[in-house]
């Protein structure tokens, strides 16, 4: 027990008061009862001091009580002498009783104090545990580590009663002027900074440093693992896509090859009629063309994907491009072109755009029901020129709409002989030329692909706004890159 002199002074005063009160009591009752029997009143004084001030003070009180009682009430009075042996016994009993009572009372007092301090410690532990639990539950997947550290700082500030607290992952501490810096132990070096106005003592905050450090480590580790998992997933998806493309290519190459090989086998057979020979030769011709188209498409696609398209941009009239694409269509399906005569020019590679519209027209023809025409419409608005290629076919199921531009993608039920590359090549060419292609599901049925480019001049009259080198004047509207592929 370390007590300050001030506490001892107070204790002495209390002892004197307690003994004086007991003495007053004895003096007051002396007329009623013989004084010798009233020594028991001093036990009350001892008891009071024992409870308030502990065992040593109680012992002093007992001694002072015995001396005072002896001096004031035991014959001969006002001397510290004892005349009767009976009084000696009385005083000794009083002294022993005082000591025992003092001891018992002070034990009770210590127990109470112990319980109180235990409760205080328990409360402190509870606050720590609550803080750590909150920190632990704030470590959620999907949050960035910076956000997690910010949340942890706020929790620490709220719990420790500080205006602010923050956690930083750094090797050396860099506290602000009014901040305490505490190392957070763990596999990573991190520092906790708490403003000095915290209601927790430095020692109390230090107690949470280690578990906090471990939790932060968990958060950091978790983010790392999540990053890694995302990376693995991405490369797995790329692998799956690659496999799908390889599978599609091999299937698309093999079907015409098989048809050709079969037809050649048929030509070699002995019992084949002239008509059958013609048919087999047709098969070989058609499938050779299909293979050639597939190889062209694959080449285009690889050029687009490697960014090697290099459009030769020039003043281009989309009406000419569309007309040329329509003429190339070998199908005898009806194609209705309704493009306004004042359609603005665009700056693009006409040959590439012709490929785009050829693909879109072939596609539309393929899905058109017999007798239904493919329609090509367009116009200019908002500084853009739009051309739409629409069919009245079955339309593209909602779930497939996002995927139609992927290479080799075919809607379920598409049993056509196309490569599944036309739309991705179209998009590649359109985007390389600064345009946009979007799928617009028809209002009633059918599909419409809208290709749009920035208009190259604001009005259809007058020469193009820029560049004498581009060849201003009406003749510039003539598409130049109309050379066949």
């Amino acid at each position, binding site marked *: 027990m370390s007590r300050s002199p001030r506490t001892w002074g107070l204790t002495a005063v209390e002892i004197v008061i307690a003994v004086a009160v007991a003495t007053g009591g004895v003096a007051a009752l002396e007329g009623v009862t013989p004084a010798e029997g009233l020594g028991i009143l001093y036990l009350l004084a001892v008891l009071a001091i024992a409870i308030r001030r502990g065992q040593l003070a109680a012992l002093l009180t007992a001694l002072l009580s015995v001396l005072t009682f002896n001096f004031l009430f035991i014959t001969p009075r006002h001397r510290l002498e004892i005349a009767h042996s009976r009084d000696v016994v009385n005083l000794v009993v009083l002294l022993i009783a005082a000591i025992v009572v003092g001891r018992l009372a002070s034990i009770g007092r210590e127990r109470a104090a112990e319980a109180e301090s235990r409760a205080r410690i328990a409360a402190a532990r509870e606050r720590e545990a609550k803080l750590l639990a909150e920190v632990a539950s704030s470590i959620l997947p999907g949050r960035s580590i910076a956000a997690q550290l910010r949340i942890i700082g706020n929790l620490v500030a709220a719990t420790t009663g500080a205006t602010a607290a923050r956690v930083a992952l750094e090797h050396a501490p860099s506290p602000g002027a009014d901040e305490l810096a505490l190392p957070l132990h763990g596999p990573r070096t991190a520092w906790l900074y708490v403003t000095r106005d915290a209601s927790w003592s430095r020692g109390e905050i230090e107690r949470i440093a280690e578990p906090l450090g471990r939790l932060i480590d968990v958060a950091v580790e978790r983010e790392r693992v999540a990053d890694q998992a995302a990376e693995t997933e991405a490369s797995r998806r790329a692998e799956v896509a690659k496999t799908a493309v390889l*599978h599609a290519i*091999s*299937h698309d190459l*093999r*079907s*015409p*090859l*098989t*048809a*050709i*090989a*079969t*037809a*050649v*086998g*048929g030509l*070699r*057979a*002995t*019992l*084949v009629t002239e008509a*059958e020979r013609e*048919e*087999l030769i047709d*098969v070989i011709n*058609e*499938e050779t063309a299909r293979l050639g188209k597939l190889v062209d498409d694959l080449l285009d696609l690889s050029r687009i994907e490697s960014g090697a398209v290099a459009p030769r941009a020039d003043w281009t009239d989309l009406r000419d491009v569309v007309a040329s694409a329509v003429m190339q269509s070998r199908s005898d399906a009806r194609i209705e072109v309704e493009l306004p005569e004042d359609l603005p020019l665009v700056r693009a590679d006409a040959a590439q755009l012709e490929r785009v519209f050829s693909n879109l027209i072939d596609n539309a023809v393929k899905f058109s029901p017999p007798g239904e025409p493919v329609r090509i419409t367009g116009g200019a608005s908002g500084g853009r020129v739009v051309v739409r290629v629409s069919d009245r076919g079955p339309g593209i199921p909602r779930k497939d709409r996002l995927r139609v531009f992927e290479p080799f993608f075919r809607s379920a*039920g598409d*049993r056509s002989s196309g490569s599944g590359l036309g739309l991705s090549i179209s998009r590649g060419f359109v985007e390389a030329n600064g345009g946009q292609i979007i799928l617009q599901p028809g209002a009633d049925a059918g599909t419409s692909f809208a290709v749009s480019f920035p208009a190259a001049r604001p009005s259809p009259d007058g020469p193009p706004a820029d560049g004498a080198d581009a060849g201003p004047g009406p003749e510039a509207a003539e598409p130049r890159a109309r050379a066949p592929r």
Partner: protein
Amino acid sequence: MTTPAPRVLVVDDEPQIVRGLKIILRSAGYAVEAAETKAEAMASLASRPPDALVLDLVLPDGSGVELVGEIRRWSQLPVLVLSAVGDEREKVRALDAGADDYVTKPFGTDELLARLRALLRRSLEPGGTPEVELGELVIDLQDRRVIRSGREVHLTPIEFDIVRVLAQHQGRLVMHRQLLQEVWGPQYVDETHYLRVHMAHIRAKLENDPSRPRYLITEPGVGYRLRDPST
């Protein structure tokens, strides 16, 4: 021709392949019908059962494997599968489901016709013959002897049994499981290494160049086939 032409149903959704196949099969003396989908094939099988089926594994309304499974519930109709490199797993599933043999696309016409002939021989002439002649080999199933270029070759009983099973299915694919079951018994159907060891010994005795077999052909991952080198 005194007997009617055997009827073959071709199931494939590639019209250009079907056009060629029809002509080839017709010129080889078959009556040919074609179906593009599983559903069409089932309808055709139900209304006019053919003598053999040539089946593409990838159909627009399902897998050829499923079709084989359904057919095998009620028919032992010979089924020749058209498979592709890359579809090996599907091919094995089709064979497990009961398909009899396969050719890989793009296939040679002669190969296709030889396989089809072997399949139809099985179903049209049950019983088989006691003696099988293949080029310079004569396999006498009754006396358990193999004669090569006029001289008897000594085979152990197991070796002869392997040759016997292959000869009874001459020209046709015999899967590992079937061979193991018929020679060793049903509890040995997974012990394919038995076959590799014995096949090496048999080839050493019967083939001119065991590393380039002419008679005993390996179908990788599936089984073996005893082939007549003259066809």
